[in-house]
């Protein structure tokens, strides 16, 4: 073999992808040719560096949220369990109550803060008090059921998902507490009942998302 032929087979030689005859011929040439010996060493270094240095490369952004979203989007339609219609019904009642509260409040002559007369006629804290009380009771019932479902499933959810749900629940509960306290201080406030029902709805929506999460996205037990 001459130097040109050696150059053609150096990649395979370094990779060990040569026949015993070729190996013998290349080795014999390298022993007598310092130029080709240096070239072989250079090829060896290049491949060793490539193998050692080029992987892994972490991406600049976490790709998982995009991957999970695409997997989620491609999955079959949600399967509902026997108890989900009950939960859905609770949310429907809540929404209906919310709309009644909204209509009542929007239809008030003043359109602004309620007068003491409105409050007195209703006999409770607000003119739409019956609907509001219904909404609040429905919310409490739906929330209890949904929190129970969440608690029963939390062991099957990723710690990140549990943390996100709990963080949102804390934020919503805090908002509810603040609004209820404000309503207690200012029972004639025109806007707070509708806002409260909207916040109740947010929490129910989020918890329903957890309750109706398809089984295939949950880790298998056992």
């Amino acid at each position, binding site marked *: 073999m001459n130097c040109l032929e050696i150059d053609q087979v150096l990649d395979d030689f370094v990779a060990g992808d040569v026949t015993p005859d070729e190996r013998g011929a290349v080795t014999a040439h390298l022993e007598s040719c310092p130029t080709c010996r240096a070239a072989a060493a250079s090829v060896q270094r290049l491949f060793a560096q490539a193998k050692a240095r080029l992987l892994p490369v972490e991406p600049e952004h976490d790709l998982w949220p995009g991957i999970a979203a695409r997997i989620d989007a491609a999955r079959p339609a949600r399967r509902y369990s026997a108890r989900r219609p009950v939960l859905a019904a609770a949310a429907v009642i809540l929404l209906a109550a919310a709309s009644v509260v909204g209509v009542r409040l929007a239809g008030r002559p003043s359109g602004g803060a309620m007068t003491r007369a409105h409050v007195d006629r209703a006999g409770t804290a607000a003119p739409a008090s019956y609907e509001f009380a219904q909404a609040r009771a429905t919310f409490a019932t739906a929330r209890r059921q949904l929190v129970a479902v969440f608690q029963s499933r939390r062991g099957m959810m990723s710690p990140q998902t549990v943390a996100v749900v709990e963080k949102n629940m804390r934020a919503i509960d805090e908002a509810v507490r603040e609004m209820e306290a404000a309503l207690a201080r200012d029972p004639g406030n025109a806007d707070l009942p509708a806002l409260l029902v909207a916040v109740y709805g947010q929490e129910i929506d989020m918890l329903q998302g957890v309750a109706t999460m398809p089984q295939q996205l*949950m880790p298998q037990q056992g």
Partner: protein
Amino acid sequence: MRAAQAGDLCAFEALYRQHVGRVHGLCLRMTGDRDAAEELAQDAFVRAWRKLPGFRGESAFATWLTRLTVNVVVSSQRGKRRQAPWAARAASAAPATGPTLSVTRIDLGRAIAGLPPQARHVFVLHAVAGYGHGEIARALGIAVGTSKAQLHRARKLLQEVLQP
């Protein structure tokens, strides 16, 4: 692994965390493009999720995932045939901090990114992923002789630009 195969997304996320560096790195080295690499790495994991139930464990999971990633990259590149002019890439890869630093000092990753596409694919599959020429030929849809010629070309270009 079994949990992920059975549809456990959390278990699959754990596999993602374990292998994303290799999958993304392979995409990056094969494309030479960071944005494309992130997109293709996502594609590879989405495809892996779909195909995971069919993984029989005949090879190591990392090997299976590497093969799948290579297929994803090659399919995406087939239609594009994007050319990355070697000279322009090499010039842009050269540090601009002064005459004492020359083009020969550019790092290997950037040098590989500047290779012509087919030479880059063959070099990465051979030197980085550990493929033989037969596997490379099958993966890229080329002849074994072409794979050898492209590896030789890639190695020559890299030595030229990297030599001290």
